[in-house]
């Protein structure tokens, strides 16, 4: 059984059909990439899978269990973690605290689910701090540092700095670290290299390759096709909300429909405003917003 299965997923915004009857499956251990021009509906697809947005139709299954329309907090507890295209680190939290939020669902407090009593218990235990809690706290901190260490000396020396003070690339790394701290069964990465220079991109490539090597299941949105070609087991191409092609990286690249979709949009790149609601984070960080729409 596939780890993730999406059937006929659909989402409309006013008249725009952002996601239009998309089907896809991701097997455990696979790395699947979703590519397509800006505005194709890739981010919306991610939002639907992670529960941040509710579909107008279709189904999402995890391990064959329907999870359609569940709130994001429950999906996180089921092991779905994601990063955001524009970066959503917690600015005033330290890097370490950002990563610890990633481990939120793994804390003992998270198992106190009863509505009122669970809440009161959580308050009381946070006040008393019994030894088991302190032990858990120590362990999670240790693990968070281990996750940070995966990025060499990029993040670890800055663990106690507030995230807003980080460089753009380091904020993006922090986001990946936060997602990893959840110990995800399924990791969704939305343009992890957007706005990064070639060196940084190459670093992310190696990083994702290593995650893949550890058997992580990854669903990846990416514009940089060389990276997609090297990492993906399968590639799904979207255009105008629809899936227009799917297959091995090589075969998708040579598919005339795919080339047509990219070229068709390339002509408008100059005048179309960014399809995303806001690219403020990129702008604020002084990074270019270029998302090359090329198939070379």
């Amino acid at each position, binding site marked *: 059984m596939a780890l993730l299965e999406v059937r006929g997923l659909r989402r409309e915004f006013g008249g725009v059909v952002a996601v239009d009857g998309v089907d896809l499956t991701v097997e455990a251990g696979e790395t699947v990439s979703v590519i397509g021009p800006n505005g194709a509906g890739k981010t919306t697809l991610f939002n639907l899978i992670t529960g941040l947005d509710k579909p107008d139709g279709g189904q999402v299954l995890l391990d064959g269990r329907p999870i359609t329309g569940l709130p994001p907090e429950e999906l996180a507890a089921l092991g779905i973690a994601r990063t955001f295209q524009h970066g959503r680190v*917690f600015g005033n*939290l330290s890097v370490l605290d950002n990563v610890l*939020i*990633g481990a939120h669902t793994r804390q003992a407090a998270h198992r106190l689910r009863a509505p009122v009593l669970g809440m009161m218990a959580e308050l009381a235990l*946070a006040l008393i701090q019994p030894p088991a809690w302190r032990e858990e706290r120590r362990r999670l901190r240790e693990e968070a540092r281990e996750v940070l260490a995966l990025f060499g000396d990029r993040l670890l020396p800055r663990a106690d700095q507030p995230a807003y*003070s980080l460089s753009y690339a380091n904020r993006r790394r922090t986001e990946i670290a936060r997602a990893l701290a959840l110990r995800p069964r399924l990791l969704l990465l939305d343009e992890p290299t957007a706005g990064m220079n070639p060196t940084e991109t190459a670093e992310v490539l190696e990083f994702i390759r290593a995650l893949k090597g550890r058997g992580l299941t990854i669903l990846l949105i990416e514009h940089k096709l060389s990276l997609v070609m090297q990492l993906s087991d399968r590639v799904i191409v979207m255009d105008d909300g629809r899936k227009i092609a799917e297959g091995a990286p090589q075969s998708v690249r040579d598919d005339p429909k795919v080339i047509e979709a990219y070229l068709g949009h390339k002509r408008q790149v100059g005048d179309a405003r960014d399809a995303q609601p*806001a690219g403020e984070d990129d702008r604020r960080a002084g990074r270019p917003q270029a998302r090359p729409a090329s198939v070379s």
Partner: protein
Amino acid sequence: MPEFTLRAFADQLVNGLVIGNIYALIAIGLALIFGVANLINFAHGSVYMIGAYVGWVCVTGLGWSLGPTFIVVAVVCGVLGVLIERFGLRRLQSEARIAPLLATIGISFALDQLVQLIFSPNPQSFPSPLPATRVMLGGVSIGALDALIAAITITIAAALFAFLRFTRLGWALRATAQDREAAQQMGVDVNAINALAFAVASVLGGIGGVMIGMYFTSVYPTMSYGAMVKGFAANLLGGLGSVPGAVIGGLLLGLIETFGVALFGSTYRNLFTFVILIGVLVLRPTGLFGAQRAMPPEPLTGTFVANSKPVRIPWFVAIGGLVAAALLPFISSNPYLLQIFTNAWLFAMLALSITLVTGTAGQMSLGQAGFLAIGGYASALLAMRLGWPLELSLLAGAAIAAALGTLLMWPVFRLRNQYVALATLGIGEVINQIILNWEGLTNGVLGLSNIPPLSLFGLPIVETAPIYWFALAMLVVAALFQWRLTQSHLGRTWRAMREDEVAARAFGVSLHRYKALAFIAGGLIAGLSGAFTAHMYSYINNETFAATTSILGLTMVILGGMGNMSGAVVGAIALTALPELFRPLADARYLLYGVVLLLLVRFRPQGLLGTV
């Protein structure tokens, strides 16, 4: 209950429509500003009140007729609106989302106090210069003023409609309201449009103020607050930011209120407003006529609080400060000084609770005084009616405040940013209104007197110094409690939720739960402070914990730095003690608070000690 004949019904209908017309004027202004600047303008009520005073000066003081009066009012208020936009708000556009909102609160504090200083806090009689004759129209009696109000409002609404529809400027204004960035790219000077929206809104507000002044034949400084809340309620009813919605919302609110008062009595007047405010926020945040779209999407960027590195107070400084505070009664036996500082400690507890809820958890609460009130009344009633010992009634008061207050705040948990501010303000006011109207329990306006004094293990505590120590000890316990929580995973989760609700949810943070926990923890502390206050004064009524107390507490928090516990205490000392120590300031304390708020937001948004 008055007998309800058809005739009375018709009269009430006219009353309701007339009042509704004025609410509509206020609401249109708020809608314009919300639409163009995406800002809930808390200073709007003050502009309206100033309009009323200018009108009163012209008519009653100078003996002018209504024509020139309205012109002067329009000019003064229009200029005031432009000044507010230009010097109070424009620079804040790129700041944290909370900044312009706080600035409008600061402006309203300052303006209200200025008027109070100039004209005294007492109501001034404002007789209408119009003839008192009433004409009968199909069995309904209509006065000259009624007709004038209706005529002016309809003229203004029509003119505004024509302006928005048919002029280039009006088009630019609507374009800006729809999509600011797009309008800017098309060459619209959005700053000028902002100023224009404030000018038009302020003119309408000022004219509304004059008319209401004549209608109720009096003007007074605090009329600003009520008008502002009425305007919000009308606006929400019709859909925040919608001009036609504001008109309909205003009329509906006027009718509901007038008939409500006719049926249940005038003490219920404000209860209706607030219940509507909250009902709409909970059931239909887009308003009765708003599009079915969800609430306007918040921009992805811009955190709730400013980025900052907090000043860490070394532990020995904190201990030193505490020791000094504990020794104060030995240093000075001046009872007046001790009373001031006792007050400061009680305010510091309120500030702690606000800094937890608003600073740490990011829920902009303007209703925190409601927790004080519940704590105060609960503890007083348990001690008076059931004879509970003080230790027990204090703790029970705190617990009841936390539980009941959080339950009442529940509707807020679905809302975000500015809506939270608006809804908490409304809920704080509902608590106040319930206290006012539930006479069997609370004794209504008369309040509770002869509340048992403070005591500990049966020993009464009535001297100034022991009361001082008792308050200080409670503050220390509250601070330790809060420190413990904010250092645990709860603190981290609260702050993450404040920074970005979407990202927090994506990592499993259940927002309702952690918002509730913040209100419970903060409610315990505020409730304890309120309970202590009740026994200390041995008398409380519904005004002991007025809405301005919440905003004062918030100012302390912003002064010290959001979420910063030492900042909350420093802010409380500064704003409680300073005006008392420098007597001339005491009469103008709200002017001071307002100016402090404005300067902070502009020049040091992270507060003195920084956001945590």
